[in-house]
């Protein structure tokens, strides 16, 4: 029985951009908040030739991308869908980034949602364009349109053996009425020639030759370079500064300051050094003498936060879900059949390879910006707010991104650049973040603490599952009602596990912190996946059952489990699909086959972003050193649009996940981040890369997310393998050498 309702993740992402913009615009810059609802507004039926496909008379077809490419392959997968309905020759299409036009595009790119959300609209748009081209051809030949068929970028009239290219037809086709998108005939999936086949990344050549332009590569004429000295303590600001020494550094043009924006964009403000080049700006920053007001969070540390978590765990908590009576069932269970443990996860930084940056010029009549952003419309709204220019006078170029992982859904780096550009006046300014800036002023994956209690019966059934969590909630920071429902962003699938447990209780207490946090690759699933899939493994051990067999049995019957967080709109968890990926991964990894001496296995399965994953990890331990040797994945993300791209995303999520349990920990001391660069916040490297195999279920369900779902299973699969090797459980991430001894 639900006692509280959690907020749906997709809506959360969708509304957050607009809510954030509303906060920015409404509270801090005094402009109209009417612009802020752009993301949510109803999309009108637009002429596909104005929005999605541009065809020149010489038949060059350009497909328009309305989402942001950050490495996830959307610049390939989305145009594939359009090209399929348009019967185009894939190798001949060009792809171009859309302008920020909220009337046509929903640019926000996150939540592993781009293919899922675009699948039907792009098919409809492509189909509409194709039908308009067919009509134009039929009119040209004065024949029944049923005799006209699309083929290789043109229309063929079979009986007469006549052929007109789209380029010859487009001037007429584009003026025809747009078919009703809800009834326009979609291509039969049996006839797909592009979707479902391995395609290489559209921009692979540019990215292999140094010509791909990222935000940081923007070089408009008269560019001024800037770096900002931000208060190292979250929430602090400069009281006074002496720029005399900084201004004496060769290449420095000026030193100014910008205000923090403590809501919406959550930008830190600070002292800005403007220079002829990036290096001079960095040198100038070193020479600044700044007195900081460190604000209310100067006393925070990871230690104090952990103590707060421990204290929270001993106090009454908010009951989020309560099926049956978990407390009574646990009390009644024999000690040997009970598990009572705590899992802990630290803050984690995104560490995109391209540090944050944003280039903005604000002139008297117009503004232009080059932004590596997952939220181009929010970027535009921020610049509109700062510049006070009408929206149509603010051009945002969405550039390629050197990684996003959720970090680039933020508006802070845009706000800063807009503030600086406004102060400088009519010259483009790039605000460049150094690695240290990027590491120490991130929006971190929340730190969390999970007290798990459960029990199995003598037949090996789960009789109770109790999950208390306290964490530095994302919702508490971002949502209007975050204070009332801080748990909304923290449980995900942990609130509707696939395992049948009659007595199932979830409790939550907000952990208070001044550390900014937001969406990190797979967001709360990165924690929930670890907790749920480690805990179920512990229950399997309590039941003396093989971890794979235990999971299959605990999942039990085929059924659809409603999304507890969003029962109305969220997709239910289909247990048959979850079991199928577990079975596939186990088969491909030869789960039941003995391993060579010194090699150990662990398994995990998880549902996230409406996709199903399972992973089997093989590890070895030598002299207390962990080596992940092989990971076998099975994924079901609905109909695979670009299997090659899906594999790349899962391979990447595996490595990102490896970083999260073997390496990454952001720790806080005196209100500031202790880590600063890749020496103390380490990344997995080539020599630590396991062999990763990805097996894709050939589903015909609607496509679902894949940028993030590969991540949640990796930590538990490896940690469960470590248990198999050592008999010791890893319950606090990241793994430390002593955990393996």
């Amino acid at each position, binding site marked *: 029985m639900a006692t509280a309702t959690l907020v749906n993740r997709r809506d959360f992402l969708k509304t957050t951009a607009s809510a954030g913009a509303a906060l920015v615009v409404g509270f801090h810059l005094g402009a109209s908040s009417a612009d802020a609802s752009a993301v949510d507004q109803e999309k009108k039926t637009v002429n596909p030739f104005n929005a999605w496909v541009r065809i020149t008379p010489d038949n060059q077809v350009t497909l328009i991308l309305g989402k942001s490419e950050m490495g996830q392959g959307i610049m390939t997968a989305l145009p594939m869908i359009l090209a399929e309905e348009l019967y185009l020759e894939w190798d001949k299409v060009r792809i171009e980034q859309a302008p920020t036009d909220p009337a046509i595009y929903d640019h926000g790119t996150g939540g592993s949602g781009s293919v899922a959300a675009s699948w039907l609209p792009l098919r409809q748009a492509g189909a509409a364009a194709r039908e308009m081209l067919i009509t134009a051809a039929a009119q040209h030949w004065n024949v029944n349109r049923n005799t006209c068929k699309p083929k290789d970028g043109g229309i063929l009239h079979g009986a007469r053996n006549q052929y007109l290219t789209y380029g010859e037809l487009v001037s007429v086709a584009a003026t025809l009425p747009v078919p009703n998108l809800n009834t326009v005939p979609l291509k039969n999936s049996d006839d797909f020639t592009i979707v479902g086949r391995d395609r290489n990344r559209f921009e692979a050549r540019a990215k292999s030759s140094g010509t791909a332009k990222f935000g940081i590569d923007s070089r408009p004429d008269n560019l001024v370079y800037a770096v900002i000295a931000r208060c190292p303590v979250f929430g602090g600001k400069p009281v006074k500064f002496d720029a005399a020494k900084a201004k004496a550094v*060769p290449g420095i043009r000026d030193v100014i300051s910008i205000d923090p924006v403590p809501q919406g964009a959550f930008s830190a403000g600070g002292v800005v050094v403007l220079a002829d080049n990036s290096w001079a700006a960095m040198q100038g920053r070193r020479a600044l003498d700044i007195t900081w007001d460190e604000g209310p969070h100067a006393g925070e540390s990871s230690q104090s936060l952990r103590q707060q978590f421990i204290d929270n765990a001993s106090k009454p908590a908010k009951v989020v879900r309560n099926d049956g009576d978990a407390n009574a069932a646990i009390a009644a269970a024999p000690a040997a059949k009970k598990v009572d443990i705590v899992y802990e996860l630290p803050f984690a930084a995104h560490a995109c390879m391209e540090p944050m940056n944003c280039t903005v010029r604000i002139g008297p009549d117009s503004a232009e910006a080059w932004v590596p952003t997952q939220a181009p419309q929010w970027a535009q709204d921020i610049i509109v707010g700062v510049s006070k220019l009408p929206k149509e006078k603010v051009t945002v170029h969405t550039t390629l991104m050197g990684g996003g992982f959720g970090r680039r859904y933020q508006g802070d780096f845009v706000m800063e650049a807009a503030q600086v550009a406004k102060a400088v006046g009519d010259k483009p300014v790039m605000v460049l973040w150094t690695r240290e800036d990027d590491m120490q002023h991130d929006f971190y994956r929340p730190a969390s603490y999970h007290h798990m209690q459960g029990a199995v019966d003598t037949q090996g059934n789960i009789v109770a599952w109790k999950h208390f969590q306290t964490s530095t909630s994302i919702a508490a920071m971002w949502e209007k009602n975050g204070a009332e429902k801080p748990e909304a962003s923290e449980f995900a699938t942990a609130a509707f596990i696939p395992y049948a447990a009659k007595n199932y209780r979830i409790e939550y207490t907000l952990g208070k912190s001044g550390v900014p946090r937001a969406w990190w690759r797979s967001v709360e699933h990165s924690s929930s996946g670890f907790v749920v899939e480690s805990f179920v493994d512990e229950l399997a051990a309590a039941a003396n059952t093989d971890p794979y067999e235990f999971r299959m049995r605990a999942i039990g019957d085929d059924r659809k489990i409603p999304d507890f967080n969003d029962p109305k709109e969220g997709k239910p968890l289909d247990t048959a699909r979850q079991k199928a990926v577990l079975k596939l991964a186990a088969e491909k990894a030869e789960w039941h086959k003995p391993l060579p001496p010194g090699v150990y296995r662990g398994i995990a399965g998880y549902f996230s972003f409406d996709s199903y994953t399972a992973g089997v990890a093989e590890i070895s331990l030598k002299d207390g050193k962990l080596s992940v040797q092989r990971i076998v994945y099975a994924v079901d993300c609905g109909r695979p649009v670009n299997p090659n791209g899906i594999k790349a995303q899962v391979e990447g999520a595996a490595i990102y996940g490896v970083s999260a349990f073997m390496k990454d920990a952001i720790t806080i001391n005196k209100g500031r981040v202790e880590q600063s660069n890749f020496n103390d916040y380490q990344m997995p490297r080539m020599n630590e890369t396991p062999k990763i195999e990805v097996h894709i279920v050939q589903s015909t369900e609607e496509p679902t997310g894949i940028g993030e779902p590969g991540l949640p299973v990796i930590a538990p699969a490896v940690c469960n393998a470590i248990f198999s090797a050592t008999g010791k459980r890893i319950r606090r991430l990241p793994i430390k050498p002593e955990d393996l001894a």
Partner: protein
Amino acid sequence: MIFTHADLLYDSVLAKEGSMAITFTLNGKAQTVDVSPEMPLLWVLRDTLSMTGTKFGCGMALCGACTVHINGEATRSCITQIGSVAGKKVTTIEGISAEGLHPVQQAWIAEDVPQCGYCQSGQIMSAVALLTKKSNPSDADIDDFMSGNICRCGTYQRIRKAIHRAADLQSGKA
């Protein structure tokens, strides 16, 4: 507290102070820059010369995104002062192949290595240097040589395959 500095922004007179003319060979052509000799090569390339193929990742030679070749050796340009480059031969991602694509680049595309792609200039520069030293590297050689280059997207498995493929391409096996 926003200062309005639009009219105060001046062309820095200090910019030239301490600068000197430094000549080196860049991708086969003589190049002279007039900058502080302490300025890292990375920023000379990116900001002074607007050659943005070489990337900034960490500024401390920890990630390899800025890798270029100096006299044929893979070098982190973010900690290499331009003064030390005078008279030397610098090759960047823009200059590794006189015509068309270098076999390493061909292999990168064939294996569909890049994801975000930001680190790949540095990865490719390291891989080219590796293959110059070892024409047919083992996995262990690759691990050893390439571990200075971070890829946050986790394309390592494909990089490894691409280096083997490039080795085959260069030796005429593929």
